[in-house]
Every structure is written in C-alpha cells, then in structure tokens.
C-alpha cells in the first residue's frame, strides 16, 4: 500500500519502476535471469532457513517430498533427492543426465507450477532469496555435483501461426510425433496410453495434460514453454523428448561439409515441425487463460422449442459461463485429488421451459466396477437449487443444504443417462436415485468431454417443495460433479462450487423506449418553459 502511494505521488519514480519491471520481464523472457554460479556458505545457510520456513511442509525437511501437506495435495510435491526437474531448457548431458539449469529451477520457484499446489513465490520472496533456494535444494541431489547441465535448447526457426501451419501441426501431432496416443485427438489428455495407465518416476498415476486448458500447463503456456516441453520432454514423466540429444550436436562434430549440411537441414526440419505442433496445440485452447467467474448466469429467452441435443446450433446463442470446480474438502470424507477442473454452463428458456447445457472434460468414461485396483463409479453431474422458495438473503447450505433448507439436485449419470430429481438435506442424505421430477435430459460422452442438456418446465405443481423459476428473478444455483474412475461418489467425494445466480431474461421490455420518450419530453418542457420565462422578463 505504501509503495503504491509513493509511486502515485511521483510519476518519475513510477516510470523508473515500470522500466525496471519491463527490463526484468524482458530479461526473464530471454531466460537470462542471472543466478550466481558459486554459492557461498552463507547463501546455502540462508537458503536452508527459507526452505524450512516456506517449502519443507510440502517438499520435506530432507527434500524427499514428504511433509505435513503431502497427503492433501495432488500431484505430489517433488522429491528433490532424485535431482529430476520437469522443466528445463537444457539438453541431456553426455553422462545421460537431464539436468536443469539454475535459471530453470529459479523460474519454477518464481512462477510456481500452474494447476498444482506449488505456488509462485515471486510476490513473497526476493530474487536473491530464490537464488539461495535454488542452491540449497540442489544440495539434496548428488548429481548436481557430479555433472553440469547440458547444452542450451535452441528456439530458432520459429514459425508464426497460420491455418496452414496449424494443419501441418495437426498432421505431426497425429502421425509423426504421435502425441495423440497420450493426449487424445482433441487434446483432452485421453489418449489410449493415458487410459491404459501411465506412471511417473515416483510411482504415482499421472495423466497427460488436457491441452485445451493452458492455465493448467505446469510449466507455463508461452510458445517457448510448449516448444521446450516437446523438444526436451518432461523429465520424470512419460512425456518423451522429441529433439534430444541436440540434433545439431552431430553437425558440429563432423568435418565433412556435405554431411554437415544434411544434418543441419534435418535439424531445421525438426525445429519447424515442432513449431507447427506448438501452433496446433495453441489452436486447441478453449480459453487462453482461466476465464473469470461471472456472478450471474443469464438464461436467454428464445421463441419455440428449446434444444434437446447438446450439439444443437441453438446453443450458440446462449452466453457461456465458466465455473471452476474444486474438491469437496470441507466435510469428511474429503476429496483432495480432484480431476475435474471446471464446467461450462449455458441456459435458455422460452417462457414455459428452461434448458441447461453442461459441458465438462473427463478423460475417462467410467462405469461401476470397471477397475480391479479401486472401486469405481459412474460419472455424474448435478445442478443444485433450493427446494423451497427463498425470501431475503437466506439460502440452503451450499453443500447439499440441511434439514430446514433442503436442496433439489437434478442428477444426471452416464448410466442410465436420464436425469432424476433427488432431494438432499445435507451431504449425508444424498441418494443417487430419485424420481423423474419432470426432467428431460440428453447427454453424451465424446472424446474426453461430457455434454449434457437437462430441461424442465419453469413451474411445477409442488410450488413449495420444488424449485420454481420465476422470470426476471435471481435464483441461486450451483453445480457439482463426480468423476467415477477417480473414486468420486455419494454426497462427499465430489467436486463443488459456490452458489451463483441464475437470471431468466424477461420478454424484451418496452419500458426503455417509453422512458426515452418521457426523457425527451421532459427536456423539451424544461427548455421551453425556460425560454418562455426569459422572454417574458427580458424580451
């Protein structure tokens, strides 16, 4: 706060600050943020102190990834004793080690690993403190003493995005690099290999990234970040390198100019192919960054029948709201390792009925009992409303209500695939079966994505015990989801979100038009009476 005040007061220092920040950003973009090569004893000690205060509860006092928080986070904190760092700009060393440069580790600490519990520390720690941490955490692994990081990755021959490049990238994605075997043909992380089960080097189940959601890319979603991950792979995970060792290395060694040229041409082609793939990956993004949550979902008013199919073109008219879904971590048993990131929601009404469209990504189409290792359940989603009409600001508890304020859940599960109405008075009372409740639904699983439409009449006969949808009013709603193969089921193990408001758009009102006329009339009356009075007195 006080810093802000000073810069507001003195624009010169503000300018200097801006330039400083700009310069710093520029330098860090170049990957040139300097880390002292040789730490002193004092650096290591300072690093240890910060580590114990800020990092040990996740990464463990011994750096082995076992701390107080390890049980409640997924993915698991890195075990630094392995010396394996996922995000590097350096090629494999001659010894066959994948070592990160100090600046790579510093960047991960500064920015955090997005979509995981590893926070970015740049707002809390200074650049010097982060450097000291880098030196300290390297002492957990001997490999840093035995070997030095390999050659720097070259980002040359960049190709700007264009429809042609994206088309070429898709071809490479599916036939040359075969990324789809893990990431799926639509990039939702649901390729065959992913479904068959992948493990990381530490023995945990790991899922390929959902490429459509760039804000969950651990190592950043900049073009160079994606290029780096494809070229060098992600160490410790099944994601392989596609340009390692350095394809140019051989060219540097040979004396034969013809051979040299040939290798260089091949290396350039590989770089270009990688840039095409980067362009394709970016074209898969649904949103460039995590969308902001909108407090109100507007159900647009349309004429005629509401669309029943989730892929009906009529849905393009309805505004889309995105809501993050998080694990239910409030009541026992809790869900810490949630897989679902968020849900897209749309609504339409025609004065008689309301229709909702829910879209969310799920790598697995789950069925009860499909896995031998753990109990699995069906995939499901539910819209939650208050069963009773509400007065004032009162609402049911957002986790399935309680005895005095029950909630209506419009519960849809992939088997049998028909939405039912089920009433809850708290999570413990949740029952997956209910009655039809006047709901009509249609849903489908398509290549790592569920799309479901649920419809009902705006009004029912049970006006006091079932949710009603008065037009022009604000109606609290919320969404909850279950990823069956992630062990999610029942009232507790599920993903949740807060209450937000549904607003059913009224018929286009004529009031603004009338008021426009009234306003014009008002202006004219004021003017002419002023004119009249003035003329009378002075004319």
């Amino acid at each position, binding site marked *: 706060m006080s810093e802000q005040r000073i810069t507001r007061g003195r624009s010169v220092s503000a300018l200097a600050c801006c330039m400083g920040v700009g310069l710093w950003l520029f330098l860090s973009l170049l990957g040139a943020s300097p880390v002292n090569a040789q730490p002193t004893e004092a650096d290591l000690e300072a690093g240890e102190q910060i580590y114990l205060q800020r990092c040990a509860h996740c990464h463990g006092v011994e750096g082995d990834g076992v701390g107080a928080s390890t049980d409640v986070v997924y993915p698991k904190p890195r075990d630094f004793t392995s010396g394996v760092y996922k995000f590097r700009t350096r090629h494999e060393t001659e010894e066959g080690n994948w070592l990160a440069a100090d600046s790579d580790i510093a960047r991960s600490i500064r920015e955090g690993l997005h979509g995981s519990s590893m926070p970015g520390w740049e707002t*809390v720690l200074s650049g010097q403190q982060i450097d000291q941490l880098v030196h300290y955490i390297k002492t957990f692994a001997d490999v840093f003493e035995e070997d030095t990081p390999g050659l720097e990755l070259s980002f040359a021959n960049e190709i700007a995005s264009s429809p042609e490049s994206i088309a070429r990238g898709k071809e490479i994605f599916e036939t040359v690099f075969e990324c789809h075997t893990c990431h799926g043909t639509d990039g939702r992380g649901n390729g065959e290999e992913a479904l068959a089960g992948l493990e990381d080097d530490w023995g945990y189940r790991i899922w390929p990234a959902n490429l459509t959601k760039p804000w969950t890319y651990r190592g950043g979603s900049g073009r160079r970040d994606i290029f780096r991950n494809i070229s060098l792979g992600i160490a410790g995970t099944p994601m392989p390198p596609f340009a390692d060792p350095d394809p140019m290395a051989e060219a540097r060694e040979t004396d034969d100019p013809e051979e040299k040229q040939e290798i260089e041409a091949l290396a350039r082609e590989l770089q270009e192919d990688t840039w095409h793939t980067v362009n394709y990956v970016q074209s898969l993004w649904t949103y460039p960054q995590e969308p902001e949550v909108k407090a109100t979902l507007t159900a647009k008013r349309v004429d005629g029948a509401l669309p029943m199919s989730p892929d009906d073109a009529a849905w393009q008219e309805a505004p889309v709201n995105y809501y993050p879904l998080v694990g239910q971590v409030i009541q026992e048993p809790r869900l810490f390792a949630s897989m679902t990131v968020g849900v897209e929601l749309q609504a339409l009404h025609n004065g008689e009925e309301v229709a909702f469209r829910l879209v969310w990504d799920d790598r697995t189409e789950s069925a009860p009992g499909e896995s031998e290792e753990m109990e699995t359940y069906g995939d499901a989603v539910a819209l939650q409303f208050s069963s009773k009409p509400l007065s004032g600001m009162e*609402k049911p508890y957002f986790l399935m209500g309680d005895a005095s304020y029950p909630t209506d859940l419009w519960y849809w599960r992939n088997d049998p695939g028909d939405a039912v109405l089920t009433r809850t008075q708290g999570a413990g009372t949740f029952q997956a079966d209910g009655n039809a409740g006047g709901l009509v639904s249609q849903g489908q699983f398509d290549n790592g994505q569920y799309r479901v439409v649920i419809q009902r009449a705006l009004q029912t006969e049970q006006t006091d015990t079932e949710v009603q949808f008065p037009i*022009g009013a604000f109606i609290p709603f919320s969404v909850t989801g279950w990823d069956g193969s992630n062990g999610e089921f029942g009232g507790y193990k599920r993903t949740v979100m*807060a209450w937000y408001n549904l607003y059913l758009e009224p018929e286009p009102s004529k009031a*603004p038009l009338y008021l426009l006329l009234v306003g014009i009339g008002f*202006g004219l009356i004021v003017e002419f009476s002023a004119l009249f009075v003035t003329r009378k007195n002075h004319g």
Partner: protein
Amino acid sequence: MRLSIHLKSLLTLLVAIFVFSVVVPFVSAPIPGQLYGWYVITTLFVIYLYVSSSEASWEEFISPVRQLLLARTALMKPLRIVVFIVVPLLCGWYFSTWAAGGSAPPGGLRVIHPTPPSSVNFQGKQLVLQDIPVSPIRKDEAHLAEHIENGRIIYYENCFFCHGDALQGKGHFAQGFNPAPADFQASGTIAQLSESYLFWRIAKGGPGLPSESTPWDSAMPIWEDFLTEEEIWQVIAYLYDTTGHEPRVMDHGGGEGGGGH
C-alpha cells in the same frame, strides 16, 4: 486573478468527483453506485446555494444562459437550435439506460465479523469466550515456541489449501469458493480480532455464523470435527506469530465485531 463563477462551479464539481471516485476508493473502499449518485446531487445543490447566494453572482451565472435563450446574435441562433435538440436527447438517453440497468443480483450485505456468541459448546464442553481474554497456551510460556511449531504443522495439514501458503487466502482450492477464504496478512481479518473470537470461528466454521453473515455460503469447515481444543489454540498462535499481527484483547463489553464492509 478572479475566476469566473462558471469556472469556479465547474472546478468544485470536478474536485468533488475526483474525491468521490479516486481519493475515497484509494483511502478506504469504492462508494457504492446509489450513494455515489447522492453525493454528486448534494454537491450540485451546494454549488447552487453558493451561486444563488447573492443577486450579483446569480446574475453572473445566469446571463450566458439567458443570452443563449434569447439568441439575439447571429452566433447564438444556430447554437440555440443545437442545444434545444441535444439536451432532450440526453435526457431521453439517461432515462432509458436507467431503466435498462434495473436488474442486479441481490446480496453484497454480508457482515464479515458478526458479534460472537457469549459461549461455545466445544465437543460437549462449554467455553465462555469472555473468560478467555487471551489464549490459554500463552500462559505456558516455556512451551510457546513448541505450540507455535505444532500450529504450523496443523496449518499445513489443514488450512493452507484454502488460506494459502503465504496466508493470503490464495490456496489452490480457493477459487471454488465465494466468499473467498480469509487473507490473514490483510489488516481487516485477524489483526482486528481476539484469539477467542478466532477460536469460535475455527471451531464452528461457516455453518456456525449467524444469518447476517450468510453461513450457507461459507466454505470454512467446522474444525471441531477434526481438531482438539489445544490444536486450535496452537494454530491460532501460529497465525499471529507468522503474520506479525497482535491479537486484540477482548474487552468485557463483547464490543467486537459488528463491523466489516
């Protein structure tokens, strides 16, 4: 130099608007829309009072308007036509947008720090908050550091995924909840509260709030179900120790809370 009365009025209005829309939000919080409108109207009224305070100043103020209305010069005639068209249109536009902006969701009235209950039933034991002006573990000074260290572990096992590693309310689950998890570093949360108030909030969580604080929206868990009495005092000690805030010592009037914007 003498400023013309029009310039004076305009300057006053501009300064007032600057204060309302820049200075006040910077120093405290933005002024809500409706209140803002009233402030501006009040300012206009004061300006009117000033302008009409003497015959001379009123004359000075009104004479250009009169010249426009009478339109005796060649310049004034077209100007009058323009003004006579533009002003009614502006009025119409203002009236109709005012009608269109009529639908805003309810809410925004949540009391963040309600008055606490006088006593808390904790796992079957009755604790009278007034009788606990400071945390009982502070009496055990010899072991305070140990208690704080335990509190730290408790925090990172139970709280950080909502309230964040840096205690700023930015844990990796925070984005799913509304209201957002409290930011303990800020001056508006634990810095204003006593340790027994925190004890109540932590023990009873969101559902323990009175209805003016919208208990149905809060994701704050009921920690009575997970932690012992001592563990809660320990995590409280950790929060104050780490943020550097001083707990308020509860006065016997129970004069805490009620505030919160």
